[in-house]
């Protein structure tokens, strides 16, 4: 089997350098003359921060002022997951094996680390209200825990291809959507949180998003993975 060339011929590289360099030069030239005194929307965010229900301005923007962006962003994530699943398990209906055997040292480590990661994740979720953090960060850590368990052979996701998986993937998005629609019914506009319950609603959304993001990230990894043993064999055997 012919491996593809990893690099292009010199002429191509030279030409690519020239033209991408051209783009870069012009780009940098524009970046260097950015207006210095443009305050942007920061003052506006600051002025409305209290009304948003959270103290962290970034979270306020993400979940309240521009919550719609975030809702669509989650849609992208769900969508990518569906796409990946359509390329992987849709045609075989079962997960690939990540690790055939539980590696003793690794699974011990995983057993130790995983609860800690769950804890960290919970903290990140909570901290997002007033400091950097939030659902994505929390979900990433949680998802990493899942991947670790899979790589160590401790947990096998083989059975989880059905409704439970799909529900876990979409639950965050669905909650978000439900909140958005609920707001429409109650307050009259999409994602217009009732002033008193804004924080609660956002926290609820974030919590469910954390679950979904974790499951999504883990399944994105696992669904395309090759068995660890095979990789190991290939590395030993060289190319």
């Amino acid at each position, binding site marked *: 089997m012919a491996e593809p060339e990893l690099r292009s011929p010199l002429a191509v590289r030279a030409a690519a350098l020239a033209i991408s360099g051209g783009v870069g030069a*012009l*780009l940098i*030239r*524009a*970046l260097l*003359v*950015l*207006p210095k005194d*443009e*305050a*942007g*929307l920061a003052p*506006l*965010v600051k002025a*409305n921060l209290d009304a948003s229900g959270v103290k962290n301005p970034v979270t306020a923007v993400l979940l*309240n*002022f*521009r*919550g*719609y*962006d975030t809702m*669509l*962003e989650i*849609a*992208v994530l*769900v*969508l*990518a997951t*569906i*796409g990946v*699943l*359509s*390329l992987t398990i*849709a*045609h075989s209906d079962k997960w690939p094996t990540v690790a055939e055997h539980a590696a003793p040292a690794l699974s011990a480590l995983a057993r130790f680390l995983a609860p800690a990661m769950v804890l960290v994740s919970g903290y990140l979720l909570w901290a997002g209200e007033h400091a950097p953090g939030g659902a994505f960060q929390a979900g990433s850590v949680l998802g990493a825990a899942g991947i670790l368990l899979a790589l160590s052979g401790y947990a096998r996701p083989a059975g989880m291809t059905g*409704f439970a998986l*799909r*529900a876990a*993937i*979409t639950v965050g*998005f*669905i909650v978000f*959507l439900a909140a*958005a*629609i609920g*707001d*429409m019914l109650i*307050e*009259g*506009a*999409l*994602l*217009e*949180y009732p002033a008193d319950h804004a924080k609660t609603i956002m926290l609820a959304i974030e919590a469910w998003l954390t679950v979904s993001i974790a499951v999504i990230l883990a399944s994105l990894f696992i669904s395309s993975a090759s068995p660890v043993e095979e990789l190991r064999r290939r590395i030993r055997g060289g190319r």
Partner: protein
Amino acid sequence: MPLSEWVGAQLPALVILVPLTAAPVAFLGVRLGRPVALVSALMSQPLAIALALEVAREGVLRYEIGGWGAPLGIDFVVDGLAATMILVTSVIGLLITVYASGYFTDQDRYRFFWPLWLFLWASLHALFLSGDAFNLYVCLELVSMSAVALVALTARREALVAAMRYMLAAILGSLFYLLGVALLYAAFGSLDMATLRGAIRPDVTGQAAFALMTVGLLLKTALFPLHFWLPPAHANAPSPVSAALSALVVKGSFYILIRLWIDVGSPSVAPGTAHLLGVLGSVAIVWGSIQALRQERLKMLVAYSTVAQIGYLFLLFPLVRAGGVAAADAWTGGVFHAVSHALAKSAMFLAAGTVLARLGHDRIEGVGGLSRRAPLTAMAFGLAGVTMMGLPPSGGFVAKWQMISASVLSGEWWWAVVIVAGGLLAAGYVFRVIGRFLGREEAGDREADTGRSPRTMEWTALALALGALVLGVAGQPLLDLIPIGAPALVAGIGVTP
């Protein structure tokens, strides 16, 4: 609050939410995909019509998401253009949905089609309604992501590689766009298009922002010479997907482009660019048509036809610069072209899909005499071809009428020459196929025919083609809708060229 009034007030949100809610539901329930999609499609229809009527009655609508209002929050902006695009998307979407429900024989294997398709639909609606430059980026990503996933759905190797090509191009295009958004925000401090319209200045940053966003969107719109990803992707996708891609998806990025150029940035930003785009559009018309002429596969031919037809859209840019009536004509003509092309092109791809379903291949050589066996499909292809050629009675003709008017009025008659030549070239490739359809069956053609063409497939293609024709004689309501809320530049009154 009575329901009807509530619905009236929430229309912009509802047209997005219906498919957006349907998408995860279709994903959750394995067998729910098809019924949910059909229900969603049928609901989108009245909503889109109501929205268009609302715009026709009330003028431009703004909807403040989260109650914040731009520029802090994100607004939906529904003007004539947006309402038109929503209307077209919902009509074509409905027919594609019906078609797809007959097209995928192995519903289980292609069960992910439905959520992906509903996401695509929702994201198109979101894109057309968005009034925020960054939100448009997210919408673009949603559109691209779902489109790519749909292209790769069959997991045939050609489809996979085409999807990869498409994916890389789409991400790159989005990055260029996003870079432009960053500069825009840095320079003018807002992401809301209406606010930006007031703040825009033709300084270095502003112009660089426009240039970068334009490049990204050109790549996503596949304007010559950036069309490299389009023919393989559109031709190797399942046919309902091809139809959606060619009819709607490329229009999405084009839509942002004209919003940016004509709505936000007046042509005082980078005047030379307008002519460059016009020239590239002209080349696309000729080049795409020539390539279509030499294709051996039906879907490839149709895909190259898209490359050509996209070129027409870009003649809009130089033509609106003339101002006055010419600009108004160019604006409505360009948009009308997008609309009628959407209808006709989806009809063509759906017809090609029926051919594929029957014959198991789409080699033009092998479709001899198909008009005997699948007359509705041949008819659909032919009628759609009328719009491609820009002949009356078809929406394509009305669009060309407006664009030629604009070019004559503005004194830049050479665009008219291109438009006319493009129509003739289109006739070349359309009749190449029709001639085969009407011609003799080669030995074995009949045997290869499985005869499988459900009525849902044949009639939906025909309905779309007929829709494109109806636009040609009864398109006036749409012609009246399109300019509502159009920028003063093209409103046609009181502006001197």
